[in-house]
C-alpha cells in the first residue's frame, strides 16, 4: 500500500510538471532515462569540445590568414590592379531635377471626420473598494472588495485578448482613495473608465444590475448608495465646488450615458441567459465621487446584489463571475462598435 501511495505521489508530481510544461509551451517528454543520460553525456562532451575546437580553428585560421595577407601585400606592391580608385568629384555628377511643387498640397481640403474615427484603446478598470475599505459584506461572508477585484482581473484578461490596453486602478487588496483612482486614470490617458461594484439593497428580495454615470439625483436610495460608495473619497472641501460644477455642467455626460447604456444592455442580456430572474434596474445618474475627476467617459456598474441570497450564491461560483466579466467586456465592445471600431479576439 505504501508503495502504491509512493507511486501515486510521484505520478501526481509528474502530471503537474507535464501541465506546467504545457503552460510554458515546452516540448513533450518522450525519451527514456537511458537515452536521456547518453544525450546528457554527449552534451557535456560537446560543451568541452566546442571551445577547444573553436580555439584551434581560430589559431589555424589566423595563421593562414596572416600568411595570405603577407602574400597579398607583397603582390600589391607590384600589381597596379590593387590600387585604390580616385573618389568621384561632385562636378562629375548630373544635377537632380528640381522638385515640382505638389499641386494637391497647394490648396488644403477639409478633412472628412470619418477618416479619423474615434477609437477606444485604453480601458481603465476600477475594482471598487480595497484594503480596509471592504465595501459591502454578504451574510455568507462575501466581501465586495474581493468580488470586484476577481471580476476586474477576469475582465482585464478578456479585454487584453481583444487587444485593448488595460489599466487597473488596483491589482491587489490595496486601499486607494477615489481621487487617486481618478488621477491614475487621467495619467494613463484612459479612453473610458469602468468602475466595478456589487450592490447592497435593504429589501433583500430585490436583485438585478444597474449602471450609473455622473449626474445629480433626487432619489434617496441613490443618494444613500452614492454616499456609501463615496467613502474614502480623498477629496477635500475645496474640491467640492469643482465636483458640483462637473455634476451640473454635464461634462462628458453624453458619452458616459452612452457607455452606461451599452454596459447595462450587455449586463442584462448576458446575465438573463444564466440567471432568468435577474432584473434590469436601468441606467441612472448619481453623484459618485470616483466619476467626477476622470477626464473620459466614466461609469460605475453595480453588477449584482450581494444582499440577495440567490445572487450571493451565484457570485460565489467562478462561472458566474466569468459570465459577469464577459458581460462587461461585451458592454465595452458595444460601445466601441458605436464608435465604428471592431476588436476581434487575437488568434
Amino acid at each position, binding site marked *: 500500500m505504501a508503495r*502504491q501511495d509512493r507511486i501515486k505521489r510521484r505520478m501526481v508530481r509528474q502530471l503537474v510538471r507535464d501541465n506546467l510544461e504545457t*503552460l510554458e509551451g515546452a516540448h513533450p517528454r518522450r525519451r527514456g532515462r537511458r537515452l536521456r543520460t547518453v544525450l546528457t553525456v554527449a552534451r557535456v562532451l560537446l560543451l568541452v569540445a566546442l571551445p577547444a575546437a573553436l580555439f584551434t580553428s581560430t589559431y589555424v585560421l589566423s595563421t593562414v590568414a596572416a600568411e595570405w595577407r603577407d602574400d597579398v601585400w607583397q603582390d600589391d606592391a607590384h600589381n597596379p590592379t590593387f590600387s585604390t580608385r580616385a573618389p568621384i568629384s561632385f562636378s562629375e555628377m548630373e544635377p537632380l531635377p528640381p522638385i515640382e511643387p505638389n499641386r494637391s498640397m497647394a490648396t488644403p481640403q477639409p478633412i472628412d471626420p470619418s477618416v479619423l474615427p474615434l477609437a477606444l484603446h485604453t480601458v481603465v478598470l476600477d475594482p471598487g473598494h480595497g484594503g480596509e475599505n471592504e465595501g459591502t459584506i454578504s451574510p455568507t461572508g462575501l466581501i465586495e472588495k474581493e468580488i470586484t477585484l476577481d471580476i476586474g482581473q477576469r475582465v482585464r484578461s*478578456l479585454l487584453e485578448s481583444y487587444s485593448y490596453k488595460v489599466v487597473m486602478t488596483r491589482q491587489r487588496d490595496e486601499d486607494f482613495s477615489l481621487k487617486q483612482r481618478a488621477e491614475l486614470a487621467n495619467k494613463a490617458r484612459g479612453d473610458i473608465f469602468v468602475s466595478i461594484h456589487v450592490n447592497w439593497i435593504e429589501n433583500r428580495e430585490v436583485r438585478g444590475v444597474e449602471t450609473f454615470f455622473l449626474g445629480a439625483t433626487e432619489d434617496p436610495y441613490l443618494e444613500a448608495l452614492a454616499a456609501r460608495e463615496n467613502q474614502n473619497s480623498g477629496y477635500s472641501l475645496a474640491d467640492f465646488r469643482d465636483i458640483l460644477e462637473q455634476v451640473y455642467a454635464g461634462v462628458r455626460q453624453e458619452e458616459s450615458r452612452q457607455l452606461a447604456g451599452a454596459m447595462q444592455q450587455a449586463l442584462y442580456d448576458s446575465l438573463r441567459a444564466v440567471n432568468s430572474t435577474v432584473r434590469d434596474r436601468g441606467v441612472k445618474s448619481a453623484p459618485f465621487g470616483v466619476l467626477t475627476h476622470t477626464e473620459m467617459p466614466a461609469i460605475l456598474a453595480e453588477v449584482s446584489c450581494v444582499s440577495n441570497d440567490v445572487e450571493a450564491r451565484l457570485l460565489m461560483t*467562478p462561472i458566474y463571475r*466569468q459570465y459577469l466579466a464577459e458581460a462587461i467586456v461585451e458592454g465595452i465592445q458595444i460601445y466601441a462598435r458605436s464608435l465604428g471600431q471592431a476588436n476581434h479576439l487575437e488568434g
Partner: protein
Amino acid sequence: MSEATPQQGSDSVLNLGVDLGTSRSSVSASNGVRQAVESYVGWPLDMVARKVLRRDVLVGREALDNRLMLDLHRPLERGLIKEGSDKDIHAVRELLKHLVSLALAGADRDIMTVQAVVGVPAEALRVNKQQLRSALKGIVDSLMIVSEPFAVAYALESLVNSLIIDIGAGTADFCVMHGRYPLEEDQRTLPIAGDHVDEQLHRLITSKYPDAKISLHMAREWKEKHSFMGEPTEKVWVVAPVQGRPTEFDATEPMRAACESLLPSVKETMLDLISRVQPEYQDRVRNNVILSGGSGLIRGFGMALQQGLEDVGGGRVRVVADPLHVGADGGLALAMDAPPSEWDKLAA
C-alpha cells in the same frame, strides 16, 4: 477571492474530475455529485425557437431532443475541440460550464474555489492541450489536463504493468502503465472508435435496405442497444420508416460487421504496445489488460481481444463495468491527491 489559497479538503474547495467525451461527458465531484450528459450544445435557430424553448442555450439530452430548433454542435471531435470554429470553442465552454453547474448544484456549502482535472486523448498534442486550456479559461479556478487512459488507470489503481484500452466515440486510447506518469511512447491513439461503428452500421443497413430512411442518430441508438461481436445470442430487429411507414428490419449481420470493424486495428495496436514492453514484464501486462470507454461495452469485445492475446501466449482482458464515469472518477482522484501547493501553480 482569487488570492485566497485553497486548502486541500477545505470546505470552500470543490475538486472535479471531468471526462470531456466526443459523445458523452461526465463529471465527478468531491461533494459526491456524479453526472453525465450528452456532449451536445445548441442555440435556438431564431426568435421563434427562442420563445418556444425559453432558453438561450441548451446542453446535453435537452439539446439533442430539440435539435430541429437548434444550431446544434457536438464540439468535440476525436476527443478534442474541433478546429477552426469559434462556435465549437464556445460550445465546449458551455458544456464545461454546465458540468460545473451540475456539480455546484450539489454543494451544501459555499464554494470559493473550483479545481478541475480534465481528460483528453492519450496522444493529444501539446497545442491541443493549450487550446483546451485556453478555451476553458476562467470557468474553473485551477485546471489540470490529463491523458484519459491514465485517468482510468488512476481510478482503478492499476498503475503498474497494465494496459488500459479506453474506447469512446471519437478515439481509442491505449496506455501502458509502468508505475510512472506515461510518456508519449507509452501511449497510442486511434481515430477509430464508436463513431466509426455508427457510420459502418448506417452504411451497411442503408445498402442492405435502400428504401429505409435511416439517420446517423438512429444508427447510434441501435448500436447502443444491440451492439455485439462474435456469435449472436438473438436476432437484432430495428424499426425505420419506408415511404413513411414504420418497418421492421433484421439488422443482426450489419450490427456484427459494424462492431467487428473495430477489432483489427485495436488488436494490432494492443499487441504492438505489449511487444514494446521489456520482455520480462510482458506476461504481467498481457494478464492485466483493461477495456474501458463506452465502446468497451460492446458485448463480446473483451472476449475477442482476449482471443487475440492467445497468439502471443494468452492473457486476460477485464471490462470496466461503469465506463461512463471511470475517467471522471480518476480525474477526481488526481485532483484530490494533488497538494494545494501544486494547484497554486495551475491557475486557469
